């Protein structure tokens, strides 16, 4: 978008405007998403527990319940415990929120000709996994600076859990990278163009298994039940955010729902086809860039709606699991990670490598041939540049 705008306005203004549009859209996604997910959580919880959820505010379905809750939170008194480290106490929710937001910056929402992505990174998968691991800092700072032992216990448990689960999460995320041949998320999404059997989850049985392990590790990594001992309401009062109230608390929750959405979207790009639907509707309707730019743009919007729907389904499954399964103890959490997730992820990684070696073009249906032509072009051997010798460099004063 920035290059498009530079034709009309000076460069610095174009880049700032493009950045502002991206930020506004993503913050809206997190905020509206949090609003929607809190309502959805209460409805899902209610239905699983054989009762209706909120039904009074905003008509029969309680649409505006979250808005009412938000208003209540904004008007609460801003408390800080007496022994708290002021600076760290105030900055902790923002660190969590920034980590969650930065992960969404590198996620693409649509197709390759004009991808809807705030920052098109070549190392997209790597960057997102790195940044999601930074959310633990906000939690640790919150737990430490609250000057309360419940908070500190909750924070330490959560930090141990998130850091342990980063290992199998990384191993699971590497399998689609292996199949696609690139860490670029736009490219990985495009490898899954076409009908549903092109999705990586159906590529080989190891990848199918890896998807479920990834989902488990992702749930653990964002501290959702059954791995939610950090906020174990019945044990630790409220864990690391015991002492937070009002708007500071709501930042932690926006960060949590933002992270849930980010890992769901990442799962849908890596395994479930991303913005390419189960049925290639956009291609059938002719909404591609081969026809006209406007139609291509509409096709991209359709893809964006598609990927958001998949993300919401992922988050709904997480909520469903939360209200169904009992909470795990910390030793059970670490056992699950080290004795189950890591070995299964490692074996599936080897299996997927072996499968890719045996049948590089896919077994069920042909992977689009373009996959293997889009590899980066290696430069020719630099015959023109003679290797610089030490003597020549000394003479030029370059060393």
């Amino acid at each position, binding site marked *: 978008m920035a290059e498009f705008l530079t034709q009309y306005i000076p460069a610095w203004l174009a880049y700032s405007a493009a950045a502002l549009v991206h930020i506004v859209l993503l913050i809206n996604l997190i905020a509206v998403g949090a609003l929607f997910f809190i309502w959805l959580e209460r409805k899902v919880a209610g239905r699983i527990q054989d009762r209706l959820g909120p039904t009074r505010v905003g008509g029969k379905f309680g649409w505006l319940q979250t808005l009412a809750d938000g208003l209540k939170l904004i008007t609460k008194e801003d408390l800080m415990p007496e022994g708290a480290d002021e600076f760290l106490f105030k900055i902790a929710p923002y660190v969590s929120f920034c980590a969650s937001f930065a992960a969404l910056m590198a996620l693409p929402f649509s197709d390759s000709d004009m991808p809807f992505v705030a920052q098109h990174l070549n190392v997209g998968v790597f960057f997102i996994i790195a940044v999601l691991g930074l959310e633990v800092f906000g939690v640790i700072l919150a737990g430490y600076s609250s000057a309360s032992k419940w908070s500190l216990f909750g924070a330490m448990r959560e930090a141990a859990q998130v850091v342990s689960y980063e290992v199998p999460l990384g191993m699971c995320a590497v399998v689609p990278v292996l199949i696609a041949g690139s860490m670029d998320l736009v490219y990985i999404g495009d490898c899954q163009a076409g009908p549903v059997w092109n999705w990586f989850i159906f590529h080989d049985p190891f990848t199918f298994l890896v998807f479920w392990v990834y989902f488990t590790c992702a749930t653990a990594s964002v501290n959702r039940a059954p791995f939610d001992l950090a906020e174990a309401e019945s044990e630790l009062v409220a864990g690391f955010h015991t002492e937070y109230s009002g708007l500071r608390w709501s930042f932690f929750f926006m960060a949590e729902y933002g992270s849930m959405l980010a890992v769901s979207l990442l799962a849908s790009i890596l395994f479930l086809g991303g913005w390419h639907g189960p049925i290639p509707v956009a291609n059938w309707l002719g909404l591609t860039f081969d026809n006209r730019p406007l139609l291509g743009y509409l096709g991209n919007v359709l893809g964006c709606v598609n990927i958001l729907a998949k993300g919401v389904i992922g988050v709904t499954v997480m909520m469903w699991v939360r209200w169904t399964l009992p909470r795990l103890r910390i030793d059970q959490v670490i056992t699950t990670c080290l004795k189950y997730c890591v070995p299964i992820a490692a074996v599936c990684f080897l299996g997927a490598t072996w499968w890719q070696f045996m049948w590089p073009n896919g077994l069920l249906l042909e992977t689009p041939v373009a996959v293997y032509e889009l590899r980066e072009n290696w430069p020719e051997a630099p015959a023109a540049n003679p290797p610089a010798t030490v003597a020549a*460099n000394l003479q030029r004063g370059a060393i």
Partner: protein
Amino acid sequence: MNVLILANLFDRFDLTQPVGVSHYLIVGAVLFVCGALCMATKRNALGILMGIELVLNGANLNFIAFGSPYLRSDANTLGLDGQLMSLFVIVLAAAEAAVALAIALNFYNSFSTIDVDRADQLQG
């Protein structure tokens, strides 16, 4: 010659020209010196460990700067060698931090204090 170098130093704040290797080297030098000061003056063992991390990062900046094709003309750069060395430094620093932390925890468990000035059993 020294006057020229001083003028060169103040000329570096030009915002219209791309930065060069020397800018990165200066930042790396600041990080290195801060790390060395940390190692020399802190009494908390973990403070010393933080100094070590700063020193390694200063060195990493140097490697990256010498290996970057955007800061020097192409024939002179280390190319990917700089980045690969930097990668290995990062990995080794992580490994060394793990062992150093294990030692520090052992020390704390034995002496109930993390103050390195109290580690004087071999003194005299």
